[in-house]
């Protein structure tokens, strides 16, 4: 009887340590991915957004993006003409402002907008956010594939629109290569693929393709003219700059 108890205890300890080691590995991988994605101090780029509907018809939007760290960003549309000049300023603690030239003033937007599609794309405001994944999700390691680690991410916030994400991370460079998004009913909603290139000392998501499986609609986000570490300051991410 004593032997049985001991073996149960040992098994439990192994399981506990095993799980802990597993979680730690998953956390480490996710942390490394965050480091790869968000290690630059700041970044500016041109973004081309291509919307492809189920019949293959394409529409293009263009924007300029400026970002400092993971919490400050200005996204300014430059085309098409109907959207040119519209800009969104994202600041820490979910503070967001929308600037529409026709109104001549900024408008504070509520954080509920985060679950909505961003400007007709398949990305939500939440998807566009550059908050580190380690701050938004709890990772769990799944069996790895040939070149990638596979993680299951569960949102920390109950208000997330997703029940989980399945993430594939490049084993050698730790950038994401593929992601699946599951809705609250645990149905696969969207999937995204990433094409990273090295620019200087940083890996850049040169092209992200997001496919909405329900709508059979695709959004491609293509970055160009990417510049890192230009010394942007907090003053570049203010309502004053948003309106310039």
């Amino acid at each position, binding site marked *: 009887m004593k032997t049985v108890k001991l073996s149960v205890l040992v098994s439990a300890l192994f399981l506990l340590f095993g799980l802990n080691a597993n979680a730690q590995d998953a956390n480490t991988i996710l942390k490394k991915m965050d480091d790869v994605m968000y290690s630059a101090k700041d970044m500016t780029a041109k973004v081309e957004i291509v*919307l492809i*509907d189920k019949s293959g018809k394409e*529409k293009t*939007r263009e924007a300029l993006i400026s970002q400092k760290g993971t919490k400050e960003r200005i996204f300014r549309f430059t085309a*098409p*003409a*109907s959207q*040119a*000049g519209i800009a969104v300023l994202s600041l820490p*603690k*979910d*503070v967001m402002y929308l600037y529409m030239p026709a*109104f*001549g*003033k900024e*408008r*504070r*937007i*509520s*954080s*509920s*907008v985060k*679950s*909505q*599609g961003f*400007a*007709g*794309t398949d990305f939500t405001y939440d998807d566009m956010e550059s908050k580190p994944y380690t701050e938004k999700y709890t990772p769990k390691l799944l069996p790895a594939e040939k070149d990638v680690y596979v993680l299951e991410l569960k949102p920390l916030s109950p*208000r997330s*629109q997703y029940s989980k994400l399945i993430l594939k991370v490049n084993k050698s460079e730790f950038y994401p290569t593929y992601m699946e998004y599951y809705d609250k009913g645990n149905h696969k909603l969207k999937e995204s693929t990433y094409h990273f290139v090295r620019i200087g000392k940083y890996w850049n998501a040169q092209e992200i393709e997001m496919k909405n499986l329900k*709508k059979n*609609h695709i959004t491609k986000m293509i970055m160009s003219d990417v510049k890192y570490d230009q010394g942007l300051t*907090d*003053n570049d*991410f*203010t309502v*004053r700059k948003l309106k*310039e």
Partner: protein
Amino acid sequence: MKNRNIIIIFLIAMIFSTKAMEAQNENALKLRGYLQTDQRMLLKSPNDWAWNENRLSVKLEKKMKGKAKFYSEVWLRNIGLPNIVHSSDLYNKNILSPWNLEIREAYVEIYGLFSKNLDVKIGRQRIAWGTADKFNPTDNVNPYDFEDILDFGRHRGSDAVTLNYYFSSDYSLQSVFVPFFQPDNLPVGMFANLLNMNMELPQGLVLKSFTDQVSTPRYNIGESSTAGLKFKGFARGVDFSFSYLWGHDGLPFDAYNTLVPFDTLGGVSVNAQLYFPRTHIFGFDFATSLGGVGLWGESAVFLPEHKHVMTTDVSALYPASPVPVMIDSVMLDKKPYAKFVLGADYSFANNSYLNIQYLHGFVNESGSKNLNDYVVLRYEMKFFEDKLKVAPISGGAVVTDWKNVKNNYAIFYVPQITYMATDNVELDLTAGIFSGKGDNLFAKLADYNMLMFKMKYSF
């Protein structure tokens, strides 16, 4: 006519030349704008045309090495319907096809002048104050543009100097100075009389003719200028501002009426003398997000500089009286009164959006006794990657006398469908259904239920 052709040729040439320059150089003069047609038809038979407007908006912008910006917006419009009275009018294309040219804005903004924290903007500009949607009681620097009575909240630009000093990224102080007084402009077309006050005459008298004279403030700093300060801040997740404006009422007040007999049946002619009283306006607004819900509030306290008394001279009706016969009525006391707006909005995950506002005091109302209570609601849904936007619930209600609601109310329902036919072509179909009783703007619109169609091409 020759001038019009020159203007049109100039605008078209400018569009092509600046587009070519833009393609070559990002810092070149940028030209944007839109062409919009706005047609409205009354629903009641015989379905009169209520509005005809074809607008070319041309916006020019040039940034100068990040140190300054030039911006202008010009409207070239064909507005209104031909008003032909005499055969001679048939020779006049301005009557056959009325048009106008308007400089909405034209300013230069200099960033970091004298100090890196100071921005200066000089020229005709829109100075938009307030956080509420469309209905902003603190937004009084620019005159209201009531031309299109359904475009609430539209203002004209003012020729002004604006200084913005940024203490930090969260706190700033804005000072504005408008040297010349510009009154609000009134509605046009069939809506022309909607903002006119009902004139109450002594019993037995009937208004037969009406004339008026408007006194504008003398054009000097003391009388015609408007000046204001606004302190803006952000703390604990809340945007807020405090403002003060030394301005005028944009709509004229009746100061002196002279009644003269018109006929022997009790008909009278009225001559009114109108003026624009000085007013001090203290404002406050805030905006925040709580649990995903956007919340805002905005209030303006108006303090008239003088008590406003309307004198009605009826001496001509009493020729035997040894002394002038005058009737004085206090129209606006020298007491503060407050207009305010409280609002909330929420964006749902299914791409729908809800916005609700409560207003105390509409844009054309003044004096504590004349302020009414409004609720305005809008729920809109977006489909097909935002190409189609439908607002099935859009409208509101007003009660002008809570003691007698059934005779003093109005409801309005304004459902809207907007479709982006291409990236730059927007089609918009809106219905305006108004119902009500009593002396309020929306009740007066009850005769103008209409269908509105707009097409906008942006370039």
